[in-house]
């Protein structure tokens, strides 16, 4: 039972790290970025290339994956995304799906279409027993890293000037601009960090989700569920939604394997019909 809970949390945490960037673009910038998974995939492949092909230690590859995805994200934001901020959602969909197609095909071209796994150091494999709870070492690592990221995010958001500027920009974009906050730049940096986190999540998650060129489309649905169920008004919303989704998915499949496939979709529909702003969104919006 507790093992199930543990697995669910690890899975949920992973979803959170990948999706939290999407919550920012979607919720704060009102941008339907269906290509978010592509950044996760790029981060994953970056780690794969480093570890498997160049023998870089696994832990060293994680920050590189973050930086790589973040830099690409920043570049894409400044050159392409910026043209779409004031466009209709449909045009944003068209644009970002186009990006997904391009990255998928490009990855296929350069790295092949096989599933890829990152070679893990042996001390991260297997699991140990902790008072009867089976704890997978790698899952524990995921939980630790994701928890660390969550804490760092909260710290940055809560205790740095950048964090307060970002929250200010989200609270009231117009007034923030009028009071000298360069909202464009704040959002661009945030976008980059979101992409970086997705990249990091992609690298961390390669072991569980597996890497392949169709990763962005395959998991897009999950990321969207996290964001739409969690709401986008804070970090905690998507976080709780991810955990709930992780546990719900894992537990649902454990206890009712026959219907496991329906559980998350049904949860999502029910939540959205009852609370269109998301489960954890603040009551009033705007």
């Amino acid at each position, binding site marked *: 039972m507790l093992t199930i809970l543990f697995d669910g949390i690890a899975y949920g945490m992973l979803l959170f790290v990948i999706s939290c960037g999407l919550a920012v673009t979607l919720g704060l910038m009102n941008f339907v970025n269906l290509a978010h998974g592509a950044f996760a995939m790029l981060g994953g492949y970056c780690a794969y290339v480093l570890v498997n092909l160049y023998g870089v230690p696994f832990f060293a590859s994680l920050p590189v994956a973050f930086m790589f995805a973040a830099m690409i994200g920043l570049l894409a934001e400044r050159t392409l995304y910026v043209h779409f901020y004031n466009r209709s959602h449909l045009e944003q969909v068209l644009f970002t799906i186009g990006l997904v197609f391009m990255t998928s095909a490009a990855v296929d071209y350069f790295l092949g279409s096989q599933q890829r796994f990152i070679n893990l150091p042996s001390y991260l494999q297997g699991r140990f027993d902790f008072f009867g709870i089976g704890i997978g070492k790698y899952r524990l690592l995921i939980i630790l890293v994701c928890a660390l990221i969550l804490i760092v995010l909260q710290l940055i958001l809560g205790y740095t000037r950048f964090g307060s500027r970002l929250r200010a920009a989200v609270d009231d974009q117009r007034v923030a601009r009028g009071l000298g906050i360069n909202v464009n730049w704040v959002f661009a940096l945030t976008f980059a960090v979101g992409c970086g986190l997705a990249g990091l999540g992609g690298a961390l998650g390669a072991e569980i989700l597996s890497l392949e060129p169709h990763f962005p489309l395959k998991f897009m649905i999950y990321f969207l569920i996290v964001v739409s169920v969690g709401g986008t008004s804070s970090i905690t919303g998507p976080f709780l939604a991810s955990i709930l989704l992780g546990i719900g998915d894992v537990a649902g499949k454990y206890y009712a394997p026959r219907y496991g496939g329906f559980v998350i979709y049904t949860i999502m*529909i029910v939540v959205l019909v009852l609370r269109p702003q998301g489960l954890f969104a603040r009551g009033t919006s705007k």
Partner: protein
Amino acid sequence: MSSLDTAKDASNVMTRKRSWHWLEYAFWLAAAASVFLLPSQHALLTQIAIWSLFALSLDLLLGYAGIVSLGHAAYFGFGAYVAALFAINFTGEPVTGLLVAGVAAGLLGLVTSLLVLRGTDLTRLMVTLGIALVMYEIANQMSWLTGGADGLTGMPVNPVLGFFPIYFRQANSYAYVLVVLFVLFVVAKRIVHSPFGYSLRAIKGNPLRASSIGIPNNPRLIAVYTIAAAYAGIAGALLAQTTPVVSLTYIDFQRSADVLLMLIIGGTGYLYGGIIGSALFLVAQKFIGNITPQYWEFWIGFALVVIALFARDRGLFSIVERIAAWRKRGAKP
């Protein structure tokens, strides 16, 4: 302005939007001619016509009522399965099958429409997506009935109305699909140019104002959702009747996403967008695919980005319109 002084003239200006432009006649004549002139492409044309109908149904929703859907394949797939099962168990007469599939998909649309009334674009995207995913799962799990991932085969396709054979008659089959598309297009055109159709535009344009001039928003949205679902179901039934197997790909996410892309490429809100979009998409897929079977997706993606960068809501047309406007401006400095 003097010509507009009578009510009759003013009315004509409005109703003229419903009448046919000569280019539309030309378009449909060309389509009819293709039955005789392009036998080598009938298979592709048939697919284009079916996708066109599917995209047309989404246009009714998105282009006129402003409801975005990422799960429209739910109704397409449902219609296809209903048509196939109906043909296997009752009669293989295609038109009957279409009607049954349309009614069944419409009913499904009617029930599920209640879920998509509220919320923003994002909520609607996700709820429609959820509906389609659940439908997919159901079709997969009921493999005793649907064949699941192996597909449903053995569907009889009798002559249309008892005299017009389409099974393994490429040309007849294309003619049949084209006629269905044309009839439903004409009906759709009537609908969107009716008071009902205009009330949808009003709701899409400004729901607050629509309700404050007396339009009952929700019943109208439910009605159009039902109609669109029925159209999608008929499109699905057509594909089932012209392909020897109905499989889970009829109902998968990729199909919902593709039809949305096709419609946006062609442009929403003027009924031809879906036809143009699906023609472009499939022709590009085929011919780029013939050159590079593995990497055609890259070039399609590239095209999407470029279209998105330069086009507006009307899809590709806006690019043409902008070029035309620019040339006009250049012509008279």
